[in-house]
């Protein structure tokens, strides 16, 4: 379909959203991601039966953590769509891109940018 979507999204493949761990989501924010979205199968259609339902709970948990540390809940979202829903994927990508642009750069990224370079590299 080759539907166009914003270029600032990078996809990380996992076998199932059931494999998306809290630690992965937090690492992404810690490293400086402005936003993260988890794209899982439609509820009830998980190839592994209920992986997406577990992911949903974890996303919710991480949202709470993000809120507590001051990043807010809006930078993380879970979406459910099937492999046959290309147009929906492009729409979500645009939606998320728009939302993150409104929220601006992540405070963590801004903080990291203001650190002396040597120190930044040490953290990576």
């Amino acid at each position, binding site marked *: 379909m080759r539907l166009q979507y914003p270029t600032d999204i990078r996809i990380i493949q996992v076998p199932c959203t059931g494999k998306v761990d809290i630690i992965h989501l937090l690492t992404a924010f810690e490293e400086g991601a402005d936003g993260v979205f988890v794209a899982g199968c439609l509820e009830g259609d998980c190839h592994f039966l*209920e992986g997406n339902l577990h992911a949903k709970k974890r996303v919710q948990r991480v949202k709470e953590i993000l809120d507590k540390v001051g990043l807010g809940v809006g930078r993380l979202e879970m979406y459910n769509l099937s492999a046959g829903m290309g147009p929906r994927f492009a729409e979500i990508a645009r939606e998320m891109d728009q939302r993150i642009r409104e929220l601006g750069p992540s405070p963590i990224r801004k903080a990291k940018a203001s650190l002396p370079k040597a120190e930044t590299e040490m953290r990576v």
Partner: protein
Amino acid sequence: MAPTKDRQTIGGGNGTVGAVMVVGAGIAGVQAALDLANSGFFVYLVERSPAIGGVMAQLDKTFPTNDCSMCILSPKLVECGRHLNIQLLTLAEVQEIHGEVGDFTITVQEYPRYIDMEKCIACGLCAEKCPRSVNDEFNQALNKRKASFVKYPQAVPLKYVIDRDHCIYFKPDKKTGKIGRCRACEKFCPAGAVDFSQEGKTHHVKVGSVILAPGFKTFDPSRAATYHYRQLPNVVTSLEFERILSASGPFEGHLVRPGDRAEPKKIAWLQCVGSRDVKYHSYCSSVCCMYAIKEAVIAKEHAPYDLDCAIFYMDMRTYGKDFERYYLRAQEQGVRFVRSRIHSIDLGQDGDLLLRYMDEDAGLHQETFNMVVLSVGMEVPGDVKSMAATLGLELNPHDFAATHPLTPVATSRPGIFVCGAMAGPKDIPESVMQASAAAAGSGSLLSEARWTRTRTKEVPEPRDVSGEPPRVGVFVCDCGINIASVVSVPEVVEYAKTLPHVVYVQENLFSCSQDTQVQMLKVFEEHQINRVVVAACTPLTHEALFQETMRDSGLNKYLFEMANIRNQDSWVHTQEKEEATDKAKDLVRMAVARATLLKPLVEVPLTINQRALVLGGGVAGMNAALNLADQGFETILVEKEKELGGLARRVHHTIEGLDVQAYLDDLIARVRAHHNIQILTQALLVSFIGYKGNFVTEVLVGPGMYERKIEHGVTVVATGAQEYRPTEFLYGQHPGVLTQLDLGRVMHESPEKAAAWQRVFFVQCVGSRNAENPNCSRICCQGAVKHALELKMLNPEMEVVILYRDMRTYGFLEDYYLEARNQGVLFSRFDPEQSPRVMQDKEGLVLEFQDHVLQLPVRLPADAVVLSAATVAGEHEELASLMKIPRTSEGFFIEAHAKLRPVDFSSEGIFLCGSAHSPKLISESISQALAAAGRAGAFLADTTQTISGITACVEPERCAACLICVRVCPFKVPQINQENVSEINRALCQGCGICASECPAKTIQVSHYEDDQLTAKIKALF
């Protein structure tokens, strides 16, 4: 190439030869060859042209999924090219055949290529230096190629060929009469591969059976003066238009017209060119409606401006699975559909074309288009006719192979099967289906000789890389221009060289081509690469290919990572070249970061239970069971009703006049008598667990409802469909309103009653093509024609009227439509907005409808009104949820891929056939059943399969036996063992990773997706 050895060189028992010849290497031939070679037979694949791939390789996109045709075909071609048990014979023709089923000897003439295939490195210098330009047939003569050429960039085998008819060397000198001039290619070939002394070779090949898949050619419209084809340059055929759209075509995918390379603003498609025309071919070519819609939709997508696309047609025949939805979508996207007859095409101004046509009101209209596409039909090429004569085969009146509806892939000569377009015009999925069916037919004939002619490969000992530091090789693909036109590939290559652990980087034009694969193999060895990163299309289609190459060089296939820089980059950011290049660099950096942490994984051999389970005892289920049993597999046939037979029990005759009940009785007797088949009737599936090769199904078997546990290796789903029970048109309220199945019963049980009718109406599309059920039910048009002809036979005076929306008598069914009109059956079209009305008055039934010619309402009494009720899915919710197999919104099961895996489910080891897939005719159900049985049998026969290395593993030291994994696993795999720690059975683990993510001690890791491997990717991003 790894060394090979013959497992056994003599034939099987009783002289049956365990080898098959497949003639024709388009998609049908390729599929048949792969199915057979994977299930224990040696295959000779004979192709007339210099490369395999057929017409599918020429197509731009395929309907109804709009997949890139070459992208989905190419992996299959490569698999064929590299398969140990397929021998390609290109530039070859069958000349003679002797012997009989089980033991044929076939003479094949192989024509000289004048290029040594062993030496050619496909560098293309010969073509570059060749001074002779000729029309490129692959691009439909829209551009030029050289006399030394390769058929297309991804050709298999990727070897050049010298075209003797045009090469200067072979043209005698005018003065001396001698040949041998030019020789530029020979001089410049760096490999010394050009060999003008090559002569043809004659092969005498022994095989047990033959599958014919020679394909079709398109109708030549210059035979019909109306179209001015070849005189008006902007009148093109649909196949030419495919090449125009194709990125690898003559205009690199720019939508321009051939006459002046101007961008067309208005394009017209004319349907039925050479088809449904008694002057040329009276049959319908079955595929043109769909491909015209597809071309119109794709053209609109291609054009960076508002393109006007209009399709001029007689009946829109979108009868296949989900085709009607595609048609509706095209209308939403603004494609115009004009029901009309073409009067003439004339040259307008500036190369434009003036189209005159008559619409339904018989009004003559005219409209100017920039370009006209002729939707040319399919016909049998002359050389196929002569081959059929050589092989002693009967042809039907249209020159296609004569087949019997109940044995749809068998020719008139035992042991010779046919599939694809030679057995009648058809689309890709049906060709693939028939190919698998023909392979199943061969497989059951030759089952005793399985594995007697095959060769096995000695895979090199896997290299132990555990002690080595990571040495990453990065291969960045241009994908022709798919990637390179957006992403700056050289920039990505330079960037990759700077990444840690990267020791080698190269750019490939087509990474998936066979010669690149061979070259990559050398690179792995030369540079001692132990991690491979390919930045290219998508792992979905190509990961397995690259992993196979790694295996050939002794590298564990899990040491591979792909950066998706086409589907997730160049294709979706076409206008943002710089950003796309940056993204490609990021993706490569992330892939390299993960690759350095990847570990080799061992794949455990899969044990495969050799028993098959078939669900559904209708025509499809019984045929599948019978074929599996004939292939030598114990088969259990489960039917929920008391009796076998399914929906066909209510059908009396096929349109060809065959007695369905007699066929069914014979089929049931054969199934009952087969020593390999066990039948369970009144059986209800209550549980389905396990995985490919090792399923356990529980059924309750009536009438006592005792429980039966079945262990089996494969499952075939053939649970059928049902006739819609209309709620409209007074159905169930007036005895004169019948469905087609009801009518069949009346004509069978009391023909005298039917014979007394004076006037009968058929109403088409009842319960189909509406808001609730948007799809077409495919079989009702031919059903109405069949019954109309039967009624006319009972009483020639009877007035029979068929009220229809589009008559969809595709393929040879068109003959019967024509016959019905000749017999005086009346056809009247209606629009869904002006649907006919059935009423009841004192006299009886009355039908009111709008006559589309008179444009006036007509009201007539009727003795019977026959509703062509839809074929709707069976009640399969529970079955689908037990088996975890997907269904469409209408309830039909969804196959793994609409085009190339039409009888597989995406869950391996489960197969699909019959009307549970979508509505279809008995003959089509039989084809599909054979195909499913063929695929299932091939799965059972391939005992070399392994289970994935991607599973969850517990590190017992840190396990606190908290039971979280036990609770969260949807497959109930983890168990607390005697050491009081969690244990996960690798054979049962599905590798989803839910347990790993939930484990509070983080002591479960999913191999290949370990936490540090994923985190490395995330960290590499920033």
